[in-house]
């Protein structure tokens, strides 16, 4: 039945064959992995590319006067170009490799913050940010005596844009906003947000951790000043992330982490720094992980991000339908423009218990506050159960989710 509901032509079984983790058994049941907003699984091509690099090509970069080192350096730089082209960045030097989206945001908070944020300045975030896009700004504001302002959301989990416009002023230095809420799935109108911020001379950082895997993101079109995302949420390795920054802004920012590889010359009295991106990549970088990230981008491109987005949209519609059909379920996050994330709560059943009972059937969902406690508070719940989909999920898995939720309701009836 279910497959007829999905109209997009998409050979999901063939795609599933690319992901070894998807054939793992959990509690003697086939894994139904619905926690993709937390982390995603890797296709063979990523695993194999990293294995080949580590077993046949590995060397450190930017030092080797030997063949292997030269090749590794060329490869590493090619990955920077690949990432730049993936997100529509005109210049590879605007791509900085970090350990993940969290570090990317911290880099901006520290470096941009120390150069540009002063007493009385204002930074704007939204009510539905991940803690990674709240805490660095709180710390910065406290340190610099700056003021943190928050865009409220309506009951659907959409930003109230009139309020945003009212918050903007000549005091606004930075707007740090998520592209897609990891807890609700809301897709924020970032292009409009950027335009309005630029009108008052403010810069904009977009947390793209949830958007990069699910939709086309083009930094040139969005005209954002910074974009942060993680490798492990786009079918790549952990420990690798990206910060995109407009080159002229990156040039003007002081270093964040200091040490080797980010310098021009060092004497015991004074050091001059390299230009970006090297200025922000002190120490030996996660070379294998960068190679793996490149392979993940190749994989996504081979499927096509537009096809991924269309298929996931249908999964979302189908998933919301089968869950709502059960009754007694409250979906939290009902924005018009929504990504493939369904957060829900059941009356009198805590999400932790839901997740534990679903696990018995091999269904992996997240029960908790999703590192978004202010979002939970806004909707009056301590936590939610969250099912988040990727293009390798199939409708049958959503049927299994619905059956599991029914079982939970029976146990707690």
């Amino acid at each position, binding site marked *: 039945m279910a497959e007829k509901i999905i109209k997009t032509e998409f050979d999901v079984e063939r795609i599933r064959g690319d992901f070894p983790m998807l054939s793992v058994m959990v*509690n003697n049941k086939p894994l139904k992995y619905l926690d993709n907003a937390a982390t995603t699984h890797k296709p063979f091509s990523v695993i194999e590319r990293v294995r080949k690099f580590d077993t046949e090509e590995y060397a450190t970069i930017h030092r080797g006067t030997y063949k292997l080192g030269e090749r590794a350096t060329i490869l590493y730089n090619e990955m920077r170009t690949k990432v730049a082209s993936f997100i529509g960045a005109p210049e590879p030097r605007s791509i900085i490799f970090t350990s993940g989206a969290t570090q990317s945001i911290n880099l901006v908070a520290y470096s941009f913050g120390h150069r540009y944020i002063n007493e009385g300045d204002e930074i704007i975030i939204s009510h539905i940010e991940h803690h990674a896009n709240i805490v660095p700004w709180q710390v910065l504001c406290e340190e610099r005596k700056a003021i943190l302002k928050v865009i409220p959301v309506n009951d659907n989990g959409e930003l109230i844009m009139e309020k945003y416009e009212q918050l903007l002023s000549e005091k606004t230095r930075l707007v740090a906003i998520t592209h897609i809420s990891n807890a609700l799935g809301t897709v924020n109108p970032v292009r409009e947000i950027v335009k309005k911020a630029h009108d008052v001379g403010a810069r904009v950082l977009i947390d793209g951790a949830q958007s990069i895997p699910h939709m086309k993101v083009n930094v040139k079109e969005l005209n954002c000043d910074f974009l942060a995302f993680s490798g492990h949420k786009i079918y790549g390795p952990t420990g690798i992330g990206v910060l995109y920054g407009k080159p002229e802004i990156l040039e003007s920012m002081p270093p964040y982490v200091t040490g080797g590889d980010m310098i021009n010359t060092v004497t015991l009295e004074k050091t001059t720094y390299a230009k970006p991106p090297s200025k922000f990549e002190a120490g030996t970088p996660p070379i294998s992980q960068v190679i793996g990230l490149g392979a993940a981008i190749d994989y996504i491109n081979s499927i096509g991000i537009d096809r991924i987005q269309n298929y996931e949209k249908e999964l979302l519609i189908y998933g919301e339908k089968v869950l709502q059909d059960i009754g007694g379920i409250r979906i939290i996050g009902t924005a018009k423009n929504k990504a493939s994330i369904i957060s829900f709560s059941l009356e*009198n*059943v*805590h*999400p*932790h*218990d839901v997740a*534990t*009972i679903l*696990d*018995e059937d091999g269904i992996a969902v997240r*029960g*908790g*506050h999703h590192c978004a*406690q202010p979002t*939970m508070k806004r909707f009056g719940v*301590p*936590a939610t159960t969250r099912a988040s989909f990727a293009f390798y999920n199939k409708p049958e898995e959503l049927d299994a989710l619905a059956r599991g939720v029914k079982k939970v309701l029976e*146990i*707690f009836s």
Partner: protein
Amino acid sequence: MSYQSELYQQVILDHNKKPRNFRPLENPTHSCDGHNPLCGDEITIYLKLNKDMMVEEISFSGSGCAISKASASLMTTHVKGKSVEEVKIMFDEFHRMIRGEFDPDKNKHHLGRLTIFIGVREFPSRTKCASLAWHTLICALDRKGEAYTE
């Protein structure tokens, strides 16, 4: 019986649905707020100790999952009338039991019916749910400000 059904036994489901001693206490001699930062669960324990340092009255309020609520509820019914010293021994045995380090089937213990929480040892991610009330109780007895699951 699956690990899940061992965890969600009828007694636990019953205490989740109808928690005992689930109310604030007026004029407690001891109290403490407990938090589980991992999931946002919150609980407050209220105590009245008599002059012999025995638990005369105990209650709790707050929100949490079935395991944490049932654990708090059953805890209050079991520590009432016990001395502070006995409560600390129970905490130690309970804590080690849910982490799989103490088997009440093979050892002398003071846990009574609290042994139904033994199923928690199969779920390392849930031990904090079961222990939150206990950490908070110990915090109240030690007159510390707030308790966090470690």
